């Protein structure tokens, strides 16, 4: 219930942002605008969803941006010769990359921040081997359908909806509950017979899946690949998850919070673009908004405890 209250406050902020946005861009409710906006937001939403899964176990994934680029690179080089097979291959690669992070965290007992920092260099290097410079191919019809609508359907929005629906299902499985249990009290979970290692590996694997989807989405949106485009998504995804109420210590937070956080984050960035002020100030404002939002929430929580 406390979590719900946090989400209400986040939702209210989002509504304000939407109202302002609508005033500046009256085309907001039109299907075309929704399609473009959802295509623009999809990578961040899915990347943040991946980060959320990892953070729920009490971990953090600093290699997320690199894995995103890797997924994108594999996809655009079209190794399988057809789009669907390349997509599947790209996802397999990112899931394995994530699971490898998880295995190191679970078995070597290394702190997630170190493991994933090291992994970020590793995957960035691998990506550059796969795709040394921006390029690659995404079929033009797919790019058009994705960005302009397909028989009036906003494909990116549907993709986001599907991914979140899958998560909603996963969350209600034993694995989903075990994920929260490990994040909330790892020793307790272990003492109650939960295989905490397997849970962690699966969690990082899921993060890889979401991250791979984000990379593929970004490739289709831009029509080509870029081996370094993923980098900012690492920190942005963490910022969004924190904004959405996911605890750094694990076990607390919900995916819908992350979704609201990502939408707010994306809308704010666009709004700042509209204002026409320099990108320098935009960055400063983004930082301020983030600190204020998190501080308000933390202070409110402290009040309730005291």
């Amino acid at each position, binding site marked *: 219930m406390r979590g719900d209250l946090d989400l209400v406050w986040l939702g209210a902020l989002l509504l304000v942002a939407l109202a302002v946005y609508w005033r500046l861009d009256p085309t907001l409710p039109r299907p075309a605008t929704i399609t473009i906006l959802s295509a623009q937001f999809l990578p961040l939403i899915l990347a943040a969803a991946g980060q959320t899964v990892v953070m729920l176990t009490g971990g953090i994934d600093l290699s997320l941006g690199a894995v995103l680029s890797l997924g994108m690179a594999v996809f655009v080089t079209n190794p399988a010769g057809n789009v669907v097979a390349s997509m599947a291959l790209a996802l397999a690669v990112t899931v394995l990359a994530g699971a490898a992070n998880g295995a190191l965290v679970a078995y070597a007992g290394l702190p997630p921040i170190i493991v994933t920092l090291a992994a970020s260099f590793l995957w960035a290097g691998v990506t550059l081997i796969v795709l040394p410079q921006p390029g690659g191919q995404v079929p033009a019809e797919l790019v058009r359908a994705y960005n302009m609508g397909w028989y009036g359907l906003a494909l990116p929005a549907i993709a986001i909806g599907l991914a979140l629906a899958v998560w909603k299902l996963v969350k209600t499985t034993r694995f989903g509950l075990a994920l929260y249990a490990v*994040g909330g009290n790892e020793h*307790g979970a272990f*003492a*109650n017979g939960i295989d905490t290692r397997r849970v962690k590996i699966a969690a990082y694997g899921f993060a890889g899946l979401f991250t791979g989807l984000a990379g593929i989405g970004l490739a289709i949106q831009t029509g080509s690949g870029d081996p370094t485009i993923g980098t900012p998504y690492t920190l942005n995804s963490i910022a969004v998850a924190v904004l959405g109420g996911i605890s750094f210590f694990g076990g607390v937070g919900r995916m819908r919070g992350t979704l609201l956080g990502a939408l707010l984050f994306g809308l704010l960035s666009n709004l700042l673009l509209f204002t026409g002020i320099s990108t320098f100030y935009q960055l400063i404002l983004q930082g301020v908004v983030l600190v204020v939002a998190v501080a308000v929430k933390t202070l409110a929580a402290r009040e309730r405890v005291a």
Partner: protein
Amino acid sequence: MTLLNVERVSKSFAGVTVLREVSFDIQPGEVLALVGENGAGKSTVLSLITGLLAPDSGTIRYAGEPVRAWSPHRARAAGIASVHQELSLNPHQSVAQNVFLGAWPARRGLVRHRDLAARARPLLERVGLDADPRTPAGRLPLGAQQLVELAKALAADPRLLILDEATSALDDDQVRAVFRVAGELRERGGSVVIVSHRMGELLSISDRLTVLKDGEVMATRRRAETDHDDLVRLMVGRELSDMFPAKPDSSPVEPVLRVSGLAVPGSRAGVDLELAPGRIVGLGGLQGQGQREVLRALFGLRPHGGRIELDGRPCRLASPREAIRRGVGYVPEDRKTEGLHVVRSVRDNLALTSLRTLAPARALTTVSRRRESELVGELIRRMRIKAASPAQEARRLSGGNQQKVALAKWLPNRPRVLLLAEPTRGIDVGTKREIYHLLRELAAEGMAVLVTSGDTMELVGLCDEVLVMYEGAVVDRLAGAELTEERLVHASVAGRAAAGEVSRA
């Protein structure tokens, strides 16, 4: 057939033997109590049974089969469920989710929350807990959380239920509910192992009692063959003569520290105490009755109310910095996090509290290495710290030597008041003796010493006066001829002055 056989099991940690050839057995349809002082090895035995630890030698047989590759997972699958004093709940998940923690009932792979709540309700009823299964477990009061743990244990439909201090946070009604559950289980042929400090409880529920002392089984008695005094004798009966230094005749001295109405958040009553130079005062009672909080408050680690006078003048001890400046030293219970910098050298640890004198302002606050070496060498000699060299990392030392370092670092400042929490926990007998004699020496030099300990023998042997704490208040003060282990145990368990009471069972 015997359900569980523990046969000549031994276990040691970092060279300290915790269990020595421990043997006992549990029959179906029986409640067995494990009795012993803190540190007697009860928890270790239970951890071996539940698969959290593996024995160094000896065998554990469960239902006739020796257990191999035992783990919490396997123990649980084999029908062993446990409730510990330390909660294993996830505070962020709902009561229902916690009841089925790790074994959530799923239909076609999915766990339905309504289903979970419906299945949890009868279990919660059985343990007498009236709580909404959907509330987060962390929101319930401590006693209720303990009952959730019990419901969780019952959810596994156990053949062997382990209750490890499971009643410590419960009120009388809740304790009755726990015993009712244990009784029901026994009637259906299940077994229960119970550990509790409350002797009366044990005598009312158990069929047999096994007494542990210093990691060895002293005796196993049938309920009808024993009573409270017999058990206490078995628990504490040891030769005290050589272990502890002689106590000097105490003539009244003006106290250096006078505390009245000391209250920490969460405690109900204030604590009054006086510490005088040359005297060692102990804080006794059951575990977790507020002893630790008193020490932490006096060292400025915990916000507190009440009046503190040092040399007759009121003073504030709002932070460790202030406390140290006023001559208070603190050797904490958890030496690895608060007492020492375990990854730094012995030398760095010993010099840390003396930086003010080693690095004076006129030398641009740089540390004089020569004077540091002198100081460190002197402390290592005086305390007989066994380290390969002063450069050795503190974490490589044995527990006893670590404790000596944590204590020694205060000495150069010549503190007026020395606070020690569980000064000999996890330390071998020889070093214990050294520390007792050292504390007495320091007292004789004019220091006022305050010690908390869960070891009644230690308190009785070492202290001039012992204050017995119960639920955050001092309920009895024992000194002189009144200070005996039996009086102390009685007062600790009864939660009031033990005068005239022989047995509360």
